[in-house]
């Protein structure tokens, strides 16, 4: 089956395609401009690319012809006044439910959640999350302001949505954004005074991933550990992967709720591969045990994989991984072996398989 991958980089968007001969670079767009992430909407085939122009702010572009042409569309914006900030970056972008054609969710830095009902022509801030009292205690994780990096629409009910915030925890709505509940039970933070350890507002889930076929099964790569939930985020349990429990990226198998992949990195002080060896951790038994996958991955290497730098296709077999030093790898067998893409790419912010 044909597969494509969107690779968003510091210097443009690269679209890779797989045919019988393997993966090859098929298209490149927005040369020289930072593309922070991209989305392929499976409902209608539309592509979206979020840019963050250093001087001129965040922008959003849409392609209805597979990338052949792009048009700039509205960018999510905070309402004017009331001490509101300006959007610095689109940090997450996801399609709404399968039964909600044309709907999109976008998460920003600062941590505003935005919703569009018309394929990005118009956006509105989701006030109910922006006004939760806890937000006053959210803080930046890697950026000056807190941001929303993960948006997970429940495939069983489009009104059920989970968001992940660095730093602000995990939140869930079951009424399409009218109200929100914190979902951090079981998580802890090792980087605050002990009395704040279980505070929802200080939790730093670097990335949240969900099994599409079994949506109650969720995974988190947190700042100080790896967590799993089997009950739709009501309770999180810590897992103990080898190599390191620090990292940013996690990918959930779309069909097998026991399988997920993580890219460990050496501690928050260092943020590089442990022993200068790139590896991927995979569990296939719900986090009870892990395999550390190394075949085809480089050593010595100093690549760091950001939170949006790992993705898996809808079969759970084909993976793509991109690093901040422009390393790009593909696997066609669930991570058992990795093939290095030889093009020397710009720093990679996000990858997405479609």
């Amino acid at each position, binding site marked *: 089956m044909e597969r494509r991958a969107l690779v968003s980089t510091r210097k443009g968007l690269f679209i890779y395609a797989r045919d019988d001969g393997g993966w090859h670079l098929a298209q490149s767009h927005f040369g020289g401009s930072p593309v922070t992430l991209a989305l392929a909407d499976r409902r209608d085939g539309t592509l979206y690319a979020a840019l963050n122009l250093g*001087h*001129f*702010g965040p*922008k959003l572009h849409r392609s209805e012809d597979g990338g052949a042409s792009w048009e*700039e569309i509205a960018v999510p*914006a905070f309402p*004017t*006044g009331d001490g509101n900030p*300006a959007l610095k970056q689109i940090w997450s972008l996801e399609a709404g439910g399968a039964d909600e054609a044309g709907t999109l969710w976008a998460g920003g830095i600062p941590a505003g959640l935005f919703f569009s009902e018309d394929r990005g022509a118009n956006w509105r801030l989701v006030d109910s999350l922006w006004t939760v009292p806890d937000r006053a205690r959210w803080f930046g994780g890697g950026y000056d302001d807190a941001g929303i990096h993960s948006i997970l629409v429940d495939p069983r009910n489009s009104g059920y949505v989970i968001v992940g915030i660095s730093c602000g925890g995990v939140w869930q709505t079951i009424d399409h954004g009218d109200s929100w509940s914190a979902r951090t039970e079981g998580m802890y933070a090792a980087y605050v005074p002990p009395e704040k350890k279980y505070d929802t507002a200080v939790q730093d889930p670097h990335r949240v991933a969900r099994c599409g076929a079994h949506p109650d099964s969720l995974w988190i790569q947190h700042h100080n550990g790896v967590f799993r939930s089997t009950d739709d985020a009501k309770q999180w349990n810590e897992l103990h992967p080898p190599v390191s429990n620090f990292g940013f990226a996690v990918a959930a198998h779309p069909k097998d709720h026991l399988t997920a992949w993580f890219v460990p990195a050496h501690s928050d002080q260092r943020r590089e591969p442990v022993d200068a060896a790139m590896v991927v951790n995979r569990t296939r038994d719900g986090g009870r045990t892990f395999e550390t996958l190394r075949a085809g991955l480089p050593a010595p290497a100093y690549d760091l994989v950001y939170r949006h730098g790992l993705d898996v296709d809808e079969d759970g077999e084909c993976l793509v991984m991109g690093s901040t030093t422009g390393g790009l790898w593909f696997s066609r067998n669930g991570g058992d072996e990795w093939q290095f893409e030889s093009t020397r790419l710009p720093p990679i912010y996000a990858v997405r398989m479609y």
Partner: protein
Amino acid sequence: MVMATVHFTARLGALVPAKQARVDGATVRDVLKHIFAQNAQLKGYVLDEQGRLRKHVCVFLDGERLAHDAALATCVGPQSEIYVMQALSGG
């Protein structure tokens, strides 16, 4: 009547009108407002959604670089030349 001439950095490419127009307005903000009324897309590149000059955009008025926070409120003269440029702080 105050009529300033406004130049935009070539980095804004096709967003900027090819012909430099002389624009009415008492302050930099007023002048830009008139231009943005004809070009809403350009507005989002120069100002953020709160109407502030983007952090890494700078304005020169008659050869002098304006202090960032005061730039929009600065009064322009009848023959002023305004340049809207990229600040090198933005990389």
